[in-house]
């Protein structure tokens, strides 16, 4: 395992640069997006694009391994589980890098029993790191985490490449479920690099900044959700 441990600041900035370089980031103020939970938003990110760029994905996985080892420890995880679908390739590369077994978690159970939502061998009390591509409001992390815990795993940490970091309730939701989240970059990093490198026009940047500072108000004003939905 050949690893370096750059500062978190450097990791975040380079990750944001890479996401912008491959056009995984979209700012659209005229015709906003609607997120799964109903939020209206002028921003969208597609982390799945990363899998098609070998130099970038290798760098990202190096950052991921360094972040995980620095924050969780070298011998504190027994396995890595990817959340269907986008989390699976990243979990596979990460498991390979950390020399750990891998599983993946289905969105819905297939069949019956304790492990109906899990693929791969999973022993009881295995300490698992849940991996996904991104976290918007944290809902899917809880659902995947519950599936792993039902299957007998111990899940204390989740890792994502990108965290929205704009919905204040997300941290509370994760904390209430005893889940600690690690990530490489947020919208604030993307905004900062976008400004510095002038990836988007000023009008778009200004509007995105308004959204990031008050996503609920922005969403409500653009026909989207106006309050945090219940976890159902």
């Amino acid at each position: 395992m050949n690893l370096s441990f750059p500062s978190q600041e450097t990791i975040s900035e380079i990750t944001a640069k890479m996401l912008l370089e491959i056009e995984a980031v979209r700012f659209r103020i005229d015709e906003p997006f609607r997120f799964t939970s109903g939020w209206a938003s002028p921003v969208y990110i597609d982390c799945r694009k990363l899998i098609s760029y070998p130099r970038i994905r290798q760098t990202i996985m190096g950052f991921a391994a360094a972040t995980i080892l620095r924050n969780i420890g070298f011998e504190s995880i027994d396995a890595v589980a990817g959340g269907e679908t986008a989390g699976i390739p990243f979990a596979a590369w990460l498991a390979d890098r950390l020399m750990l077994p891998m599983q993946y978690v289905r969105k819905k159970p297939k069949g019956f029993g304790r492990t109906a939502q899990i693929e791969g061998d999973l022993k009881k009390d295995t300490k698992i790191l849940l991996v996904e591509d991104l976290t918007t409001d944290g809902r899917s992390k809880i659902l995947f985490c519950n599936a792993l815990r039902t299957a007998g795993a111990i899940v204390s940490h989740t890792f994502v490449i990108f965290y929205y970091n704009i919905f204040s309730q997300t941290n509370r939701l994760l904390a209430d479920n005893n889940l600690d989240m690690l990530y490489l970059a947020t919208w604030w990093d993307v905004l900062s690099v976008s400004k510095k490198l002038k990836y988007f026009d000023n009008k778009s940047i200004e509007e995105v900044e308004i959204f990031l500072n008050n996503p609920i108000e922005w969403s409500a004003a653009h026909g989207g959700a106006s309050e945090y939905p219940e976890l159902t």
Partner: protein
Amino acid sequence: MFEELVETLETHNFGVRAYELFAQQCYQSAQVQTDHAVFFLTLSVFAERFVNQYEESPLTITVADAQKEKILGMIQKMEKALHKDSTARIELLNTVSRDIMNG
């Protein structure tokens, strides 16, 4: 008959998650209100197709609004058909099914 289903869509702001819950609710309703199972099943197929298409892709407000109009229109027609004879109901279900298949 469909009020609770519409409420689910509204509560979750017609996002993909709303349609996911809506489809689950349709299946449950089909098991309880067996005389109208085909209406619920048809609606669930329509909702699931939308979920499959957009749960991991960018959904714009325009597309989301178009889907909202479609499903609310469909529900309204079904509500009316409940008071008509079986020929009219089958005709509506065939029309709706064709619309679903044609995307």
